[in-house]
């Protein structure tokens, strides 16, 4: 009592497609996060620290453990500005 193989074809397609999207998401997220796992559930502190990381290392996920900041770090703090709307 064998199942005809045509009945299993849709399952093969479904598994393959989910696998493709999952692997693609994994690769693209790792690529965007420089090979690390992506950050999630970030609060204001985390976001602000990541912006500070950006000022020190040049990328949001870059890390450095130097005790002295690179030259010009103390001058590079950006103030977010918006246009006056009234």
């Amino acid at each position, binding site marked *: 009592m064998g199942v005809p193989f045509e009945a299993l074809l849709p399952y093969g397609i479904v598994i393959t497609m989910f696998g493709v999207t999952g692997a693609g998401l994994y690769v693209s997220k790792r690529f965007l996060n420089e090979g690390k796992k992506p950050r999630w559930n970030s609060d204001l*502190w985390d976001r602000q620290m990541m912006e*500070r990381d950006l000022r020190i290392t040049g990328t949001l996920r870059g890390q450095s453990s130097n005790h002295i900041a690179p030259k010009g770090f*103390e*001058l590079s*703090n950006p*103030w977010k*500005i918006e246009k*006056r709307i009234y």
Partner: protein
Amino acid sequence: MFNQKERVGSLITVPTHVTTVTRSTSPFLDFEPIALTPNPPTLPPSCLRICPQRGGYAQVQYKRNLPARGFKPWVYMVGMHAIMAYGFYKYFHGVREQRELSREKMWSRLYLTPLLQAEEDRDQVRRYYADQARAKALGIEDKVYNSERFIRPTFAITPSNVTQ
């Protein structure tokens, strides 16, 4: 066992008698058939339109003598409470550990706050002095806020052409 007088309409009462009750011994029947032996018909002649059927009605079968499956009800009750109690036990311990973890995180942030704040303050003071110097170069000697406090400016003058 079964003896009733049925009033049908307002015409007449017909007594029905159950004389014998036989119980089925078949294991495939889940109810007890009750056989009614009909009464001899002694209908009065005035019963013209609405009358009980001859010999009376059969008894309505309302009872299903099924065997009770499973455990006793209190066993299910106790089992449910045991599962709930175990879950709450685990949950309490999880919440306690979460509280300790958040305490650990908060204290590490508290220890880092002064140095980040000092960094930010130095930056703001630097900008403040830079603004003062620019205002002086333009010949503006005016206090924006009528306060002695240090205030991060809400309005800033931006360069007209941005180089980077």
